[in-house]
């Protein structure tokens, strides 16, 4: 466990929303989620919108506090870090978000965008910072001329490269990638994915890759985590992913993915229904109303995540 970069243990997160002006309704965005990311490892989190995958990313980045459970950074309890330790560890966790249009400050030049985290977290030396910025831009495949430009002068793909460069400015250990390629064209997405894979190797970086796209997750991840309504329903090692029997929900996602390499035009029987609102959770297994293999027990009890073997954990009565 020494090489653990981040670990979350039995995390619960509750949000409250106001309905009809007065009444407050609470719902659980995350339920009993545990996860460990080791050095150099990529964990891909797969799920539909509203499954809590972004919330989990925020908790790992300490942008949100969990209601229950513990977060460990480099094996130390996040809550018990001293101010000095926090200052050292904080920049080790970076993020790249989906929309490069809203994640870059439109009033900052690219140079300022890249320098800001460096000056705050590494050292107050603008000259060295600019050197680093040029080096990092080179890595992400941008010319140094962009330093003088504003984000609006760049294309979507270039902006996403800048967002990635910003994360690399402080030599992080882990980057949370929240749908890093969803806003991009496939040809640009592929370029970004390739960069990410290169960095993973050359800097021994860890990623938490949040995505609803199966090919993206399969491409980058070592472990694949499937979430449904705030719960982890399956954890599977990438190497065995194509060979093992999956959770019915994972099967649904696999079935829903339109594969450009198979000619069959078919009607899927597996894909049906919509994810329930976390305000009105179904009883028992949350997935059972959409599940093909449901039994009586599924609507009464909640299946816990069980270890199937060293490569796979599943929360389902039928597995």
């Amino acid at each position: 466990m020494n090489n653990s970069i981040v670990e979350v243990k039995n995390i619960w997160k509750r949000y409250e929303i106001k309905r009809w002006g007065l009444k407050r309704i609470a719902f659980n965005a995350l339920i009993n989620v545990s996860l460990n990311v080791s050095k150099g490892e990529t964990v891909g989190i797969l799920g539909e919108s509203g499954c809590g995958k972004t919330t989990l990313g925020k908790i790992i980045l300490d942008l949100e506090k969990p209601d229950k459970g513990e977060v460990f950074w480099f094996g130390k309890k996040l809550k018990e870090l001293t101010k000095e330790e926090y200052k050292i560890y904080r920049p080790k966790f970076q993020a790249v978000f989906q929309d490069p249009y809203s994640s870059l400050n439109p009033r900052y030049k690219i140079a300022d965008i890249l320098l800001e985290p460096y000056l705050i977290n590494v050292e107050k030396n603008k000259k060295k910072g600019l050197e680093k910025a040029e080096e990092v831009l080179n890595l992400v495949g941008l010319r140094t001329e962009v330093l003088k430009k504003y984000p609006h002068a760049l294309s979507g793909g270039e902006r996403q490269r800048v967002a990635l460069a910003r994360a690399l400015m402080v030599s992080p250990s882990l980057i949370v990638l929240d749908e890093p390629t969803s806003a991009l064209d496939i040809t640009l997405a592929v370029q970004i994915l390739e960069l990410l894979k290169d960095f993973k190797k050359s800097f021994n970086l860890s990623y938490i890759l949040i995505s609803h796209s199966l090919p993206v997750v399969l491409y980058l991840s070592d472990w694949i985590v499937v979430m449904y309504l705030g719960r982890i329903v399956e954890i599977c090692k990438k190497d065995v992913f194509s060979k093992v029997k999956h959770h019915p929900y994972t099967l649904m996602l696999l079935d829903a993915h339109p594969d450009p390499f198979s000619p069959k035009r078919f009607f899927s029987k597996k894909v049906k229904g919509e994810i329930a609102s976390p305000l009105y959770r179904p009883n028992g297994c949350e997935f059972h109303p959409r599940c093909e293999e449901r039994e009586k027990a599924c609507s009464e009890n909640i299946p816990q995540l069980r270890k199937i073997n060293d490569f796979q954990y599943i929360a389902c009565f039928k597995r």
Partner: protein
Amino acid sequence: MPFLEVKDLVLGLEGKNLPLVDKVSFSLEKKEILGILGESGCGKSLTGFALLRLFPPGINRYSGEVIINGLSLYDLPEKEVLKLRGRKVAIILQDPLSSLNPVLTIGEQIEEVLKYHFNLGKNERKERVIKLLNEVGIPDPEIRIKSYPHQLSGGLRQRAMIAMALAGEPELLVADEPTTALDVTLQTQILELLYELNQKKDLTIVFISHDLGIIRWIASKVCVFYAGEIVEMAKTEELFNNPLHPYTQTLIESYPKEGKIRKVLRGGVVNLLEKPKGCRYFERCEITCKEGKENHPELISFKEEHWVRCFKYE
């Protein structure tokens, strides 16, 4: 005679001689599904809108024709086009939340189409709306007609928009990335719905997308767009099994397969403002050809039902 014929359509910025969609021609039989595949900015959406004689501000048609069922769309007076739009050709868009009116219930919005195109009584209209909602798979349509767009989930909203498009009983449906904003499980359901409508109601569909998987799933024929031009056109299975154009080949090979990317397309799309003279794919092309730098290749029929724009095949 084909059901839909687009002949040498050129669209561009008004007042400037800058074609953004350049000499696009294709034809489509009734009940076919045409997939238009391309990256953003390649002119695929402009082409889709032009099938309804709609243009974003500043964009207009320079030349070319669109013939739907024997009617030449650009020779008609504007009044006639209004009758055609929604009745013969309808469109569904990417983001249903911004394309539905937030202050009207979905029932009212669908009824509006019926009011415009048909002479029906109030009760008949209501029945028709309920029937339409049923058809597109919205549960409890009697209750849902009173819902506002924000009260529906993303999937239901897209279904409501499809219901609205179907209200005028169109023969041609232009679907501009209708599933991009949806989760993959909902995407499958919407694609299935469109395919079902195509099969049951003989609806001809022009489906615009940048996703290879979706295009292969739904289309019977594919046009690949690059920088405002068609670079390759063929039946779907032919295109995916024997892609001819280097762009199509790289596009297919760069799609992650079993966790691996076999090829990466470098660089970006050529800037049309610079008015490229030669082949528009020249800079990114892996084939070294002499002609492409200065000369512009034509779309040629390489074999039956398979067209390609590349000097390699001339």
